[in-house]
């Protein structure tokens, strides 16, 4: 199959590549760029384990072709922490609030929450639950994920967050 040239920005770095038009963005990121943080959990865009940020929106990269990201700006879980390696408030919050167990949904979940908190910096619990409803978790029952996002929201807003993981 004839390959096409694409150029895009991934986690702040310029990337140029030749890809088959049918190559999914998730496979391009994982196999060509070795960004194995985003995962594949379902192939039908239900589970959200493959969530990345594309041009300021959360997308499920298992249902986006790599060529659709041509010219775009992609952020994956690997691009969430500060350049000096300091964890993002969400990454810290997920650990503090026990918002993860097997870790498989976590990169997609954090990447989705990263966008959610830019869309709505101080979401209510109901808004968080709706905001992450495109991301499935089989381990945590979501309660501590909600808390992790509340923790990050408070930290980013500079207000105290007193609750502990349940």
């Amino acid at each position, binding site marked *: 199959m004839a390959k096409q040239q694409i150029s895009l920005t991934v986690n702040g770095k310029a990337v140029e590549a030749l890809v*088959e038009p049918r*190559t999914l963005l998730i*496979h391009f990121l*994982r*196999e060509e760029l070795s*960004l*194995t*943080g*985003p*995962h*594949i*959990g*379902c*192939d*039908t865009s*239900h*589970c959200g*384990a493959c969530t990345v940020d594309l041009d300021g929106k959360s997308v499920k990269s298992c249902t986006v072709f790599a060529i659709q990201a041509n010219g775009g700006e992609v952020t*994956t*879980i*690997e691009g*969430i*922490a500060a350049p000096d390696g300091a*964890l993002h408030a*969400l*990454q*810290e919050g*997920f*650990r*503090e609030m*026990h918002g*993860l*167990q*097997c*870790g*498989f*949904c*976590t*990169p997609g979940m*954090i990447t989705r929450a990263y966008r959610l908190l830019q869309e709505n910096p101080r979401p209510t619990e109901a808004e*968080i*639950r*709706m905001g*992450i*409803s*495109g*991301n*499935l*978790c*089989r*381990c*945590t*029952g*979501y*309660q*501590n*994920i*909600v808390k992790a996002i509340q923790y990050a929201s408070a930290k980013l807003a500079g207000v105290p967050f007193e609750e502990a*993981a*349940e």
Partner: protein
Amino acid sequence: MNDTVLSPEQRAEKLEGIGCKRKRVEDIRFVQGKGNYVDDLKLPGMLYGDFVRSPYAHARVKKIDTSKATALPGVVAVLTAEELKGVNLAWMPTLAGDTQMVLADGKVLFQNQEVAFVVATDRYTAADGVELVEVEYEELPVNVDPLKAMDDGAPVIREDIKDKTEGAHGKRKHYNHIFSWEAGDKAAADAAFEEADVTIKEFIVYPRVHPCPLETCQCVASFDKITGDLTLWGTFQAPHVIRTVASLISPIPEHKIHVIAPDIGGGFGNKVGAYSGYICSIVASIVTGQPVKWVEDRIENLSTTAFARDFHMTTEIAATKDGRITGLRVYTLADHGAFDACANATKWPAGLFSIVSGSYDIPAAHCLVDGVYTNKAPGGVAYRCSFRVTEAAYCLERAMDIMAQKLGMDPAEFRMKNLIKREQFPYKSAFGWEYDSGDYETALNKAMAAVDYAGLRAEQKAKQEAFKRGETRELMGIGVAFFTEIVGAGPSRACDILGIAMFDSAEIRIHPTGTGICRLGTKSQGQGHETTYAQIIATELGIAADGITVEEGNTDTAPYGLGTYGSRSTPVSGAATAMACRKIKAKAQMIAAYLLEVHDDDLEWDVDRFRVKGNPERFKTMTELAWAAYHEVPPGMEPGLEAVNYYDPPNMTFPFGAYISVVDIDVDTGETKVRRFYALDDCGTRINPMIIEGQIHGGLTEAFAIAMGQEIHYDETGNVTSASFLDYFLPTAVETPKWETDWTTTPSPHHPIGAKGVGESPNVGGVPCFSNAVNDAFAFLGSTHIQMPHDHWRTWEAAEKLGLHT
């Protein structure tokens, strides 16, 4: 601050040992996308395998033409049963004593069965190759109903054993019959029913469901033709068992097989068994001389690798008219699909189903289970459950409500009256189990007080009256469930897998500078083992948990173990960890005595050090003793500080819990809202309360999914109609209720640190609690039992049948 001025309590707190809500060490890599899962692995020259699968549930395979596929550039090999026969691997043994086709040999027995394995240079080309394999089928009659499996003239599922009258578990009474298994005393139970004042009998179905971890099953096989070594990375809950099975069915000796389970994205029982994908990847790597990766997609996962439950249970209780249970009988028809690939301890074809007398003092009980073949996927794994305990708890807890209803008693009151009393422990059940410890009445009383049970019943009564008057279309249901689990398999006298006793192991090495590494035979799939095992060591040896590396999943380095499932990690490997620590501590004590020039007996343990009795200023810390172990041991003593323990538990452990839920049901839409869910768990000693609560949240969410929507459903021609997330219910954050958790602590008397295991309790207790709540809403209208799952449609249908829509 200098350690010497810290109080013992302050020193203990710094260790982050047992009881500490220690933050998980695993999380540092997971929150940064740096976990290491099987599909992240990339090896030079790695090929990809993909399956051709059967569109039919039952058909003869007339012809397989692979020529177009092999001609496709990029396709390296296509395997069929014919190729596998060359290496004697067209069939493989199952854990349950049956054999199973690796690739279709002459016919297919369930939809999506593996027919051919296409190996190509990338996953897209492999999928292209799959499309080009041409298979000619001749359809056969299909049966997917276990109730019809033993009918005269039922379709013959297994032609290979059609005439065999003996199976792995005794006599077979029909060509689709697998085994009969019974426990308890039939004559005593029958007599109890003859003499009973009141009896109930209900046909209770626990539908076929699937564990569905977010990461599917996958592996990479790499055979080195020069050395003859096979390395197999995979999503394995039991890596050592996979190594032994691989060596038993292949010519490769066990020491040449290296099984590695890296990070696993959830298991819940799905990743215990051995699947065709593993065998085909190994054979393909041997044939091609290159590494071969196989990754299931979601439809393949839901429709082929493992299922759970599919138990059809006729449940009977006998009681006196004042509500004392006198007898229990359960007859179960178990649908095992096309091959008996149940992941049970080998001698237990129906797992630990005989825990079915539950938490109650029942004098006479009997159960009988018949396993049958149908045209459905093989499996029968314990989905967040210890070997059929969920099925047992479900049928009993539903039947308890039905009996309470018949007696006109409150379900909680009826349970309270029959609970095993604290002074009866250790308690011998009618099925012969010896329950280790429990304080059931305290737990149920605490639960009822926490939710204001009497207040809830009063509110429900008022709502029922309002409903009858036509003032509301909403019904309120209160679910009560009390469960006792049996986990931590197991004593080797009772439990083995393919002849290997179900012990487990820990090997601990303390380094000269006082940190260490612990390797175990279990394998975390999200349970946080790297965090919690270190906490046991911290308390036992006085070494900070942060100073202990916990490593699992590499069969070359870890001591042999049977793996993680059936809540056995803490009861078995947790015990092994404590026992290995005690060996190390005993040696450290001798070194301390030598250095302090006192007798061993003149020393006492103080959090992180040995001190001289009556002279606490004279002590040696564990860090000092570690250095001494490599520097100046007593004359005649071996240097070094390490130990291994293989722990064969004297008994199972018996965690328990009391759960109460409240639902509100719109009878016109069937919509069911969970208003409240309170879960009290008693798992004995609590190692990390944060992780325990997390396990309970997750298990309750899986229970919610099962009770309210999950079913692997087949139509009558054998099409599996719920094999993607379009049809198979996984709750999102929006539907998932908020969980209230609580606990009591009744340590196990036979476990070195008193721990019992917890990960599966919420699934065992949660499913009946939800189902009882939905059923309870309709009980005042005379309804006794509505089958799961309680999705909106079925609940609406139940209301319709009760004439509530006229």
